[in-house]
């Protein structure tokens, strides 16, 4: 894992001192709210419905035990004993007092963490595949690239006041676990026919009110050209991007309005000039960064105990079936800890749970933890012989829910339970769907299914990318929930299609249930997933299940 240099430490410390003074001046009345708001947002501090919210960056979702424990301490000392992990691989605290935030930021700096650039019209926290460095299908670990981008983009003067926020994601596998095509810039590390490492570059993806999939800008960018090339993209966006209308200010609109060919030719022209400005220092820096992401020393040990427990304990077996993924070392596994216990808030962990995860990571996981954009926590390197012990420890902490990739593994934004922008609640819908299908004991029969819920059009809950997406809106003074179908956030990405009119708060769970029963009837085999069935059959039979009365009227 990357550790801060003296430069990083000094930078964060000075920013914290600066923000402490800004908070003091706001409270004294020397700064108006209009003056203070952009300053607090640059430091991740929002004002929500019931309280301030502090969004803390977890670069590319990577943590260790010490950092996770610090988050637990912050939750206990300055918040309400829990934290909320987000779809940007960040963590949010929902209840800090303004006067405590400078102390929280100092506490974070003790463990090389901060909240800088988690808000505002700048380059945001760079996300990456949460299986980075562990996935069996990986060409190269994407985290050194993500860290290089983090260092390049942090406080970059040219890109501190973009037309709108700007999000990067990096993956190193063919399997896309980071929703690459929903990002302003998506980078896929690939190996070309000649065996050279480079990047496939996507640009102009984004969700929100105008969802668009990223388009391929470069089929293969040599690895050494990364920074001058992405800098060229940002410069073209900064010059061409609209600033007259915030809803048309994201690069997805710039690409859409100008066309990908025009953007490509402008970027290439800029790149030809920009390339010379990078004299190789960036590559020397990258080499140092890569050294800090060296893989752990994997050990060889018999895995008999793991296999025996799988055979003797069906509950353990169920956990291993859903929550383990293939590791590149045959004796190791990637273990996903579900933060989606049925009926609980997706993405929330108590301070006790954070400490339990820190402990298992330190004892059995080479001291590595990852946050996924799906709001779960990953132990990327667990030897299979340790899985029974890890499982027992997680079980004691209420962290052994066996539902990864199933219907209750729902993404939900905070929605109107917390967020000032929300138009409806998300969390209770997620809780009710999870509880309903748990009671029906149908979850495992349904199989792979991604439900994603957003409480407003801004789509923090990625509803467009859900196999079933739910968007909460206000309609005639009450909450109303629109369903989209057929979204996919992986390498076969697609944007979900709106199914029809919205459902009331007390109708939406039953609507989802009708949809699921229809799928179970329609699928041609138990292993045909909801998404596969939808792609084979189209929307008509699913809409008929959602709107039976319309169907009857039409007949």
């Amino acid at each position: 894992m990357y550790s801060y240099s003296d430069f990083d430490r000094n930078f964060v410390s000075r920013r914290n001192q600066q923000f402490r003074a800004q908070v003091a001046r706001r409270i004294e009345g020397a700064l108006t709210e209009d003056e203070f708001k952009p300053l607090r947002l640059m430091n991740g501090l929002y004002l929500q419905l019931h309280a301030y919210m502090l969004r803390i960056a977890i670069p590319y979702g990577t943590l260790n035990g010490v950092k996770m424990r610090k988050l637990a301490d912050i939750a206990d000392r300055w918040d309400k004993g829990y934290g909320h992990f987000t779809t940007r691989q960040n963590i949010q605290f929902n209840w800090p007092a303004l006067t405590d935030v400078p102390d929280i930021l100092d506490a974070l700096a003790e463990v090389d963490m901060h909240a800088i650039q988690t808000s505002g019209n700048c380059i945001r926290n760079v996300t990456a595949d949460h299986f980075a460095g562990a996935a069996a299908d990986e060409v190269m670990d994407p985290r050194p690239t993500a860290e290089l981008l983090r260092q390049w983009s942090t406080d970059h003067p040219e890109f501190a006041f973009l037309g709108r926020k700007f999000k990067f994601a990096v993956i190193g596998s063919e399997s896309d676990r980071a929703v690459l095509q929903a990002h302003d810039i998506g980078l896929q590390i690939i190996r070309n026919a000649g065996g050279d490492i480079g990047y496939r570059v996507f640009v102009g993806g984004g969700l929100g009110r105008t969802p668009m999939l990223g388009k391929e800008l470069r089929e293969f960018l040599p690895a050494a050209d990364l920074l001058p090339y992405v800098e060229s993209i940002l410069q073209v966006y900064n010059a061409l991007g609209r600033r007259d209308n915030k809803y048309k200010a994201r690069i997805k609109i710039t690409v859409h309005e100008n066309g990908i060919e025009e953007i490509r030719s402008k970027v290439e022209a800029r790149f030809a000039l920009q390339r010379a400005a990078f004299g190789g220092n960036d590559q020397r820096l990258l080499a140092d960064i890569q050294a800090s992401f060296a893989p752990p020393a994997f050990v060889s040990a018999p895995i008999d105990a793991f296999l025996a427990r799988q055979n003797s304990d069906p509950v353990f077996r169920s956990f291993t079936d859903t929550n383990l993924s293939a590791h590149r070392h045959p004796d190791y596994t990637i273990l996903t800890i579900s933060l989606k216990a049925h009926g609980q808030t997706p993405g929330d962990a108590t301070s006790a749970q954070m400490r339990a995860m820190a402990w298992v990571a330190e004892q059995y996981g080479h001291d590595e933890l990852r946050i996924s954009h799906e709001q779960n926590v990953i132990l990327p390197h667990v030897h299979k012989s340790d899985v029974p012990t890890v499982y027992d420890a997680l079980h004691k902490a209420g962290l052994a829910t066996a539902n990864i990739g199933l219907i209750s593994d729902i993404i939900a934004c905070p929605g109107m339970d917390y967020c000032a922008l929300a138009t409806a609640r998300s969390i209770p819908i997620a809780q009710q769907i999870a509880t309903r299908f748990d009671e029906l004991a149908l979850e495992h029969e349904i199989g792979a299914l991604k439900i994603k819920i957003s409480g407003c059009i801004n789509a923090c809950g990625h509803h467009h990318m859900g196999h079933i997406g739910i968007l909460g809106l206000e309609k005639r003074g009450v909450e109303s929930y629109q369903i989209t179908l057929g979204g996919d956030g992986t390498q076969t990405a697609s944007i979900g299609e709106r199914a029809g009119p919205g459902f009331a708060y007390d109708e939406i769970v039953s609507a989802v249930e009708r949809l699921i029963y229809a799928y179970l009837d329609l699928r041609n085999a138990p292993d045909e997933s909801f998404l596969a069935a939808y792609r084979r059959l189209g929307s008509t039979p699913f809409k008929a299940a959602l709107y039976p009365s319309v169907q009857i009227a039409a007949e």
Partner: protein
Amino acid sequence: MPQTFSPKLLTANHLQRGDAIYWAASGWADTAAAALLFDTEASATQALLQANAQADIAVGPYLADAALAADGTPYPTHFREVFRTRGPSNYTHGKQEQADV
């Protein structure tokens, strides 16, 4: 025809704590039940101007639709504002922690 004015209360977030506060007879109060209900646009606008001048206490004051309950206490009518009077629905946090609800 001019639009009919619907009754309003005046609300904001507390600068230091961040929680919802309401314009009451003697300054800001923590509960909507203590809020003043404005029946005229003139009185509501005047209060909003006064509230805007109290930037050391309140952030982002605005008027919200409201009505009087049977017992004479005011309450906001929009569901967003109702949520602000109690707190989130997933935990008993926020104002509902203190309230007898």
